[in-house]
């Protein structure tokens, strides 16, 4: 049996939303090349919704499939909804990941959350600035 199922292979072979957003509202990075997987997520937010999500990933087949799936799951969701995406729900949508790959490759949700947090903290900074004025 191949190590990845058809769904994972599909997202690995045809990853959705690869790339970078110009002037993103938030950026989140997770992982490092030492363990082999690293992901950067870029988001564009409009009316509290993820209008656009893009990513770049350095890593194995699972890591690329996870990133692609997270971007697909997150697009169009409200920020609150997107914060509820978990490694478990991503793996579920992918119909399973190899056991030993679950932790190292499944960093997409965290990277996305970091991008949202980045957006929120920037926004907070802006409102604060405005408030001070």
């Amino acid at each position: 049996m191949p190590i990845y199922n058809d769904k994972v292979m599909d997202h690995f072979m045809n990853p959705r939303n690869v790339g970078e957003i110009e002037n993103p509202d938030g950026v989140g990075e997770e992982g490092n090349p030492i363990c082999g997987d690293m992901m950067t997520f870029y988001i564009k937010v409009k009316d509290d919704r993820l209008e656009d999500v893009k990513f770049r990933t350095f890593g194995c087949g699972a890591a690329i499939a996870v990133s692609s799936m997270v971007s697909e799951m997150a697009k169009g969701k409200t920020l609150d909804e997107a914060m509820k995406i978990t490694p478990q729900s991503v793996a579920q949508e992918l119909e399973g990941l190899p056991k030993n790959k679950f932790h190292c490759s499944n960093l997409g949700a965290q990277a996305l959350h970091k991008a949202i947090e980045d957006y929120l903290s920037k926004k907070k900074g802006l409102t604060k600035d405005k408030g001070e004025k």
Partner: protein
Amino acid sequence: MRKIYFDNAAITRTLPEVKDVMLPYLGEIVGNPSSLHEWGDLPREAVDTARAQVAALIGADNEEIIFTSGGTESNNFAVKGLALAQQNKGKHIIISAIEHFSILYSAKTLEKWGFELTQVPVDKYGIVNPDDIRKSIRKDTVLVSIMHANGEIGTIEPIKEIAEITRKNNIIFHTDAIATAGTIPVNVSDLGVDALSLAGNQFYGPVGVGALWIKKGVRIIPFFDGGIQEGGRRAGTENVPAIVGLGKAAELARIHLSERMEQLIPLRDELMEGLPHKINHVIVTGHPKHRLPGHASFCVEFIEGESMLMLLNSKGIAVSSGSACTSRALKASHVLIAMGLPHEIAQGSLLCTIGLDNNINDVEYMIDTLPPIVERLRQMSPLYAKFIKEGKGGK
């Protein structure tokens, strides 16, 4: 779809001639080589013939060959058995930082049993400096084990030079020749070693069989007790079909060694020159010249090995990688790290081991197929994006 097998370091195809000599021992011929009645005669003779064939491959005496279940057993047996046989003399052993896990973890087991272990470093090509062995030798050193060639980077080690040092110091020297026996000339007297491991599945023989050669007079503590097979050094009924196959593979390797090398070396060189020529930021790993005939290994920067392997697989090309994601343990290759490569570069490890079934068309197909795959993965890679923006110095 076109299928190209470039993973001969993992396992080689069992040659039809090898299979043919094995088959009669899987049903047609019944008998235990230890039996005194006539049913034992044919299997016993077959094992004796195979022993002579394996001995001839490495220039050894027949009775110095012990058949095992393969390379892992040979290495485990050698390291633990040779060290334990001399523990009254001392409890210090020396290996290199790039040994196969079957050597490294046997040595670590010996550490748990009270031995002390020194691991000598390697240079950027993966070569052990004999002087480091000399400096590591202590009064209580009883065993040195250095591989003849590394299966991951192809580099061939200066075994002769190391053997001169161990001989002067009266220390047993074992070499793991699993990557070399049957592939390049291996002669135990030339090398000057005391023990040597080899495995059938590395030179077109069957899997599940190997041999340990131990020089006459060198003591080893058996692993398996309970029988007089293999001169009392390895108990258990002989795996006759596999041993017969190993013998035949050894004979074929001995006869065809130079023509095989002549076939593989130009293919290797073409690949080693072609890929870095077609793709920027590709590093050849291992020594450019002192390397195994069919062995071409690289690190492709900014991308990870497993995804490269999977995409090549989708194009019908089977290769290997030493990246963390590829390994079951999810750790980057200890070999590449020992050579001083940074982790992110070691992650881009790509290993092509060319075999007798391959030809120049396969190499050209590989050279044409890889660049778009690398480009595709680099377009996806945050490391590459960073590099493009900031240049190599940027972090």
